[in-house]
């Protein structure tokens, strides 16, 4: 049943008895053209675009637990393409364009809200970095505007723009097409859309091994039995190393942790996504009214999804330094996600040395915004066996060759990122 105001009205009159399942609960088939390991946003979008853009419909998404339960459901929902490096411009802008058509494309309201993503600058060198980023974006055809302190103050009246602040606001760089989206809806919406094209979404199905013969993958072992496949794609942010190890692959990835938290809901108080050049917190307000905050990563390897409290203390303090009126809002819930930290901060979308096995990961803490672009590019790779030009730089062997893409230039240690 197509979702629309009319169908909702009709269903309401009938007591909502007839809504079909958003996606089926199929038994795994014995063989698929393509298996995607990982039912997060990246795996689900990949499956959808395999079916929708490449006509590859004999596809299964294998999810160890419930779809969208990894970082898709644990992020701060920020969507933007305001990067500095051209390779990331191409990737993130391709993604942002897909966000702009997403709700209609998958007939599911993902609430993509282009309320603007603003980076604040607090010093001359901040403003130089922002100008450089803005100019690079504009030169690559991406929207960006520099803002003066007064313009920023008008946009966010609760911001402390006083000259005596520890980090006085000098101005900002806004990408008006950036914003936020409803993260869970992305997983559910793509699952439903992919399912309608024939993709099997199989939850509670953990991959436990890979069948590799003569350097070629032929299928996977799962908790629900062996499943054959011509091609297998890995998209398991947070667990990439463990899954790759099943194919005896060692990755340029370390698993770290990033925390986030929300306040109790209040009426609208912050309309824009706030980030900052000198500090590390980011602030936005959800449609429900919660203030969503994040900060520094925990900066050590962990799979625990349990963060250290001093990290969120720092994020809270930074948020208060920017918006003092947040002080009496209460933190309602904090959580953590396992992040695949690559050694240059950029992701991988590439074939592996095992024929037929492909890898998508290493998104660090920036994977959510890239979800539809990542899926689009990974589907291209899986369907055609070769990289889309936009994905071409995101190779797995780039540390061997030195072709790294280090946006902040902090070097190969993930904890410095």
């Amino acid at each position: 049943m197509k979702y629309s105001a009319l169908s909702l009205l009709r269903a309401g009159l009938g007591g909502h008895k007839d809504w079909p399942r958003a996606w089926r609960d199929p038994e795994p088939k014995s063989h698929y053209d393509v298996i995607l390991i990982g039912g997060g946003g990246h795996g689900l979008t990949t499956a959808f675009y395999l079916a929708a853009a490449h006509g590859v419909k004999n596809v299964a998404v294998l999810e160890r637990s419930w779809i969208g339960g990894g970082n898709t459901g644990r992020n701060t929902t920020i969507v933007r393409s305001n990067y500095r490096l051209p390779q990331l411009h191409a990737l993130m802008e391709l993604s942002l364009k897909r966000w702009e058509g997403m709700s209609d494309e998958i007939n599911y309201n993902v609430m993509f809200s282009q309320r603007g993503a603003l980076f604040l600058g607090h010093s001359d060198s901040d403003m130089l970095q922002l100008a450089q980023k803005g100019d690079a974006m504009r030169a690559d055809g991406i929207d960006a505007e520099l803002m003066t302190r007064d313009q920023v103050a008008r946009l966010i009246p609760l911001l402390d723009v006083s000259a005596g602040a520890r980090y006085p606001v000098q101005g900002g760089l806004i990408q008006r097409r950036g914003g936020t989206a409803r993260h869970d809806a992305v997983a559910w919406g793509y699952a439903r859309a992919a399912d309608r094209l024939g993709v099997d979404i199989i939850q509670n199905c953990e991959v436990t091994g890979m069948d590799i013969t003569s350097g070629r993958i032929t299928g996977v072992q799962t908790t629900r039995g062996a499943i054959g496949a011509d091609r297998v794609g890995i998209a398991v942010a947070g667990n990439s190393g463990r899954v790759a190890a099943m194919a005896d692959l060692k990755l340029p990835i370390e698993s770290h942790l990033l925390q986030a938290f929300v306040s109790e809901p209040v009426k609208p108080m912050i309309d824009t996504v706030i980030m900052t050049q000198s500090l590390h917190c980011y602030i936005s307000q959800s449609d429900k009214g919660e203030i969503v905050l994040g900060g520094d990563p925990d900066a050590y390897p962990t799979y625990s999804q349990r963060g250290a409290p001093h990290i969120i203390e720092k994020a809270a303090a930074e948020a208060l330094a920017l918006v003092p009126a947040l002080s009496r809002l209460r933190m309602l819930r904090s959580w953590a996600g396992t992040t695949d930290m690559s050694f240059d901060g950029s992701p991988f979308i590439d074939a592996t040395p095992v024929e037929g096995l492909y890898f998508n990961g290493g998104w660090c803490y920036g994977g959510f915004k890239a979800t539809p672009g990542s899926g689009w590019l990974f589907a291209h790779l899986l369907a055609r066996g070769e990289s889309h030009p936009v994905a071409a730089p995101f190779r797995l062997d780039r540390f061997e060759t030195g072709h790294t893409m280090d946006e902040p230039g902090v070097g190969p240690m993930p904890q410095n990122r």
Partner: protein
Amino acid sequence: MMLIPCPHCGPRAHAEFTFDRPVEAITRPDDTADALVRNLFSRDNPRGHSRELWRHTYGCRAWIALTRDTATHAITDVQAWGAKA
């Protein structure tokens, strides 16, 4: 916040320490280029016991090797770096 047993200072708050790298990723300038790429730019990244180099940066500044469970954060061994592990 973890409690990390510094071999010199005793148990101290995690906030005094910085993680540096898994021990496997320690490379020296007199290694080979291949070893560098192999050790510095790829990881076992285990879920479970991991041998890691940390530093008591905001304490005695010593380098220490921890054996730490990356799933539970339980620390089962600690050595001053150089004290034979």
